[in-house]
């Protein structure tokens, strides 16, 4: 409706013959845009914001739902109306169908976009909407049901002549004798599962038993359905998925692939489109099978067919996601389509506007999922807190950031710890990756741990740059866990020179006072400084001399020239060391010389002291550090599911002590040494924060 108005104003001046054009254009616009008056978004965070953006573009009024803790969330502010549907736990708010149906009635929303997760693949929800005459923006109940069940979907795929993985298609209940038939390794999956939850790999009988226990518990708590299936595990595959778009008139398109192989614990971290691995023939074969499957289930709306692709480009159907995917923006970037808009059109009953031949691959798009998590703990354990400072790198060209948070937002234990999706686009892959590097360096996130360091390392890793990736990329490249960027000698010198220059700039500023004091201030004529910087285990003597507005810094016998505007309040600092420009972030400093600098994505801790102070500091007493082997602290915020020990028990090294559930994943906490349990500080059902003491050993 808004668009029609604008058109009218533009055309008005032209008069005469244009009046006819005006009439026709209004007529066309009316019919091409007429969809819904009001749409409810049954989701939160970035995806709710994403849907609202398209609704605004289409002139559709929006209704947001939120839990009580989300009352000030961005999606609530963006929507035309917002209604609280319950307290923080998702089961009582975003999954609370009764409350949501009530809101739909009250606000008279004509359609519901479910986003991803929550109720997006819930057939009961789709059914209830249908019975109320409300349009569900997504496929119909039949397709959701068929594809939501891993066992049923595999059978359907087989019938549609889609390549499938060998395995047991029936419900897997007893372990006896089924794994040997397939040979190890095997994959245990929750039949109702998705998003890596309830999924485990087993390499022998014992792991199968353990995996079965965990998966069924997770499946029960996440999906309320503990049925499992088992199939042969394709070792070292790529995860490539095809975006499909289908209408209610039997038309279906494939919108090319997304490469999603970079994963941790079966959850995607970096995605791109297109894939470096597919040739046009394989792409077409995969696309055609995906479309065949969509047609077989009379699919309408946007959906994704996931495939595992082995090194010989054999591909196997994994599952079909009957919703908008998290990583849909990369497809939008290379095809120019707005998938949410297409979904809304299809839901209203319009036929597709495009033919398969119209679907291009323009350039290259990369998406990094920026999470509030600590990448140094098994590639990412959730972190919670308040975003004390937050600034998206939107000043970098060709960057799209899909986020649902802002400075001051809380990342809570109740919801997914994703901060945003950072997408960069380029005419080719190299350009898109270069922009991603810049975007990651210019992204300011303070107050919670984040995975920028890991993302930046992945996108510059030679194997990733060459496209040599698989779903095992992270464990293969970092077999001992991710440890941050490893500085080369040159980079180390650059970092030291930058840190030393920052220190001197700060010292110089602290001697500059405005106004004229009664007792004159002694002006320092000092132009050179002798410093000692500690970085990791090394102590580096550094000489800094002021040279106009830049500094000449001597590190390891090499002279470097450091220039910057030295704006010490800005969260981003552009520093040029010997001609190389970099954006760094100084996260903190204190009077004792402790400084944290984010350099090449990784945060380095340095201590900068004058040479005199550094020499004297060796006389300072060493403070005894806490013995961490005899205490077990929670590595992340979450809920205690089970405690397996009690005071007085003897535990052996590696034995499970308790299980913590965070973000619906169960994590087993193990003893770091053999000993007697001295005290247990948690019990099942407790909510624990990061660093909370769980169990003490003697």
């Amino acid at each position, binding site marked *: 409706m808004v668009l029609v108005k604008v058109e009218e104003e533009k055309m008005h001046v032209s008069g005469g013959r244009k009046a006819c054009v005006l009439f026709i254009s209004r007529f066309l616009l009316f019919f091409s845009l007429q969809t819904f008056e009001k749409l409810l978004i049954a989701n939160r965070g970035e995806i709710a914001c994403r849907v609202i953006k398209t609704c605004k573009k289409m002139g559709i009024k929006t209704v947001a739902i939120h839990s009580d803790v989300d009352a000030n969330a961005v999606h609530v502010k963006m929507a035309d109306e917002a209604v609280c549907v319950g307290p923080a736990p998702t089961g009582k708010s975003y999954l609370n169908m009764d409350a949501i149906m009530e809101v739909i009635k009250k606000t008279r929303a004509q359609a519901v976009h479910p986003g991803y997760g929550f109720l997006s693949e819930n057939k009961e929800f789709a059914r209830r909407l249908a019975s109320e005459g409300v349009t569900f923006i997504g496929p119909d109940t039949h397709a959701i049901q068929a594809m939501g069940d891993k066992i049923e979907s595999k059978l359907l795929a087989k019938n549609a002549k889609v390549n499938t993985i060998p395995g047991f298609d029936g419900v897997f209940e007893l372990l006896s004798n089924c794994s040997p038939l397939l040979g190890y390794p095997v994959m245990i999956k929750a039949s109702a599962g998705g998003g890596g939850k309830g999924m485990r790999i087993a390499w022998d009988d014992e792991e199968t038993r353990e995996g079965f226990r965990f998966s069924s518990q997770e499946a029960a708590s996440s999906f309320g359905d503990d049925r499992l299936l088992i199939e042969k595990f394709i070792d070292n595959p790529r995860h490539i998925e095809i975006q499909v778009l289908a209408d209610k008139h039997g038309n279906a398109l494939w919108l090319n692939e997304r490469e999603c192989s970079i994963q941790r614990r079966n959850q995607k971290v970096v995605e791109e489109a297109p894939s470096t691995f597919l040739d046009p023939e394989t792409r077409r074969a995969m696309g055609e099978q995906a479309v065949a499957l969509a047609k077989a289930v009379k699919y309408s709306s946007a959906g994704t067919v996931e495939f595992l692709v082995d090194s010989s480009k054999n591909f196997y159907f994994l599952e079909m996601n009957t919703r908008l995917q998290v990583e849909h923006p990369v497809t939008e970037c290379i095809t120019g389509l707005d998938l949410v808009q297409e979904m809304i059109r299809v839901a209203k009953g319009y036929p597709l506007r495009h033919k398969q031949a119209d679907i291009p691959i323009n350039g290259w798009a990369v998406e990094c999922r920026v999470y509030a998590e600590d990448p140094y703990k098994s590639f990412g354990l959730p972190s919670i807190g308040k975003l004390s400072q937050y600034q998206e790198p939107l000043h970098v060209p060709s960057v799209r950031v899909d986020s649902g948070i802002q400075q001051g937002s809380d990342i809570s234990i109740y919801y997914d710890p994703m901060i945003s999706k950072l997408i960069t686009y380029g005419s080719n892959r190299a350009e898109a990756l270069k922009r991603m590097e810049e975007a990651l360096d210019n992204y300011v996130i303070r107050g919670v741990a984040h995975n920028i360091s890991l993302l930046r390392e992945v996108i510059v890793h030679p194997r990733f740059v060459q496209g040599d990736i698989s779903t095992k990329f992270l464990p293969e490249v970092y077999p001992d866990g991710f440890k941050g960027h490893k500085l080369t000698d040159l980079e180390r010198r650059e970092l030291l020179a930058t840190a030393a220059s920052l220190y001197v700039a700060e010292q110089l500023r602290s001697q500059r*006072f405005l106004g004229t004091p009664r*007792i004159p201030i002694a002006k320092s004529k000092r132009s050179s400084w002798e410093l000692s910087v500690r970085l990791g285990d090394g102590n580096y003597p550094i000489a800094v001399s002021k040279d106009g507005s830049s500094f000449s810094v001597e590190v390891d016998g090499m002279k470097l020239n450091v220039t910057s505007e030295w704006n010490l309040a800005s969260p981003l600092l552009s520093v040029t060391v010997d001609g190389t420009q970099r954006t760094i972030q100084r996260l903190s400093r204190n*009077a*004792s010389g402790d400084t944290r600098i984010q350099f090449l994505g990784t945060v380095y801790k340095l201590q900068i002291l004058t040479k005199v102070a550094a020499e*004297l500091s060796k006389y300072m*007493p060493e*403070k005894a550090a806490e013995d961490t082997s005899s205490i077990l602290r929670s590595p992340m915020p979450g809920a205690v599911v089970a405690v397996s020990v009690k005071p007085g028990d003897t535990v052996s090294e590696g034995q499970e002590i308790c299980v913590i559930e965070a973000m619906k994943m169960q994590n087993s906490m193990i003893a770091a040494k053999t000993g007697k349990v001295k005290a247990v500080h948690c019990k099942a059902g407790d909510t624990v924060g990061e660093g909370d003491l769980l169990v003490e050993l003697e």
Partner: protein
Amino acid sequence: MFLALTLLLPIPVSNRKKNKRILSEKSYGKLTARERILLLLDPDSFDEYDMFVEHRCSDFGMDSNKNKYPGDSVVTGRGRINGRLAYVFSQRNVLCSGVVPQISLIMGPCAGGAVYSPALTDFTFMVKDTSYLFITGPDVVKSVTNEDVTQEQLGGAKTHTAVSGVAHRAFENDIDALLNLREFFNYLPLSNRDPAPVCECHDPSDRLVPELDTVVPVESTKAYDMLDIIHSIADEREFFEIMPSYARNIVVGFARMNGRTVGIVGNQPKVASGCLDINSSVKGARFVRFCDAFNIPLITFVDVPGFLPGTAQEYGGIIRHGAKLLFAFAEATVPKITIITRKAYGGAYDVMSSKHLRGDANYAWPTAEVAVMGAKGAVQIIFRGKEANAEAEYVDKFANPFPAAMRGFVDDIIQPSTTRMRICHDLDVLASKTQSSPWKKHANIPL
């Protein structure tokens, strides 16, 4: 400005490598007095006084030559910190109080009457694990009261920063303490006749702080961290907190706004709901008086549910101690800016730099509730539980900033994100504020 650096710490001048007494100091993780001066003052700026003084003790063989050292006992003199003048001394007297800021740094044991020297200065800082302050040491305590107590328990840094409130902050070691002292020095004026220093500032004074719009939780019973607010409005998020471990229900400390030093006082909803009690009133009052004595503007963040009730507080004299904070704010003539973030109830509202105490600019956030007490408590007292809808009516009438704004008790209701901008603008305007009180020898604060 006077800095009491070392107290009764005899350190010889001669080469430290050869000297046994220095080695024994080192084994305790301490620096010598001269090394301390080297770290504290700008290079080559120290002019020493009384270098040739020796002790005059003749008992117990102390007059023998091997027990005599030139420059014994204490090191005193004058130097510069970031170009500004500072005097380093060991003991000074009361007359300087309120004339020049005085800071004590306790870097070793300090006992008996000597403890009154730091006690009389404006700020006392300690070094963890190596410094002690007590009137009588553990041995005397044992012989008189038969109480077993260690030096650390009796008068260590932890005791004095968290329990007694004698010390204002503790640092990890000598170096850490001296470097922090240099930084702290930059906040303070040289004397009561000098304005607080204005530093070069890179942080825009009109910076909006969007997170403040959501910092106060929707439920009025839920806590939040007042330090989040203070950090977000201060220049470069820097805040030098005074007494961070003592009476944590009130936060006091120094920050800069557009380069200008300010003293910040805030109730801390995270601790004991931010109520005022004896300890927090005394902590706040002393800080306010320091700022007023040395021309440092005061910024007060109010979220106070009231004075803590109960016999412990009343018997302890909360009336007398609470009056100190009231007195301190009322007598202060420096610029006073107050922001009510949420609760401002009853007498505690009045005490917290309200308009009634000559506040220059008093603002309320939209979440402010200026009332005699909370809705629940008020309804219980007024209606004795007989009126069902009274609570909602009370909330409607009083749990918002409008009644106070209509009476002129707050000057404006402001968008929280504009708080930094408003404060910086007001400080510019108030920089030339002069206010005088009637002549008196000195006021009689209810000590």
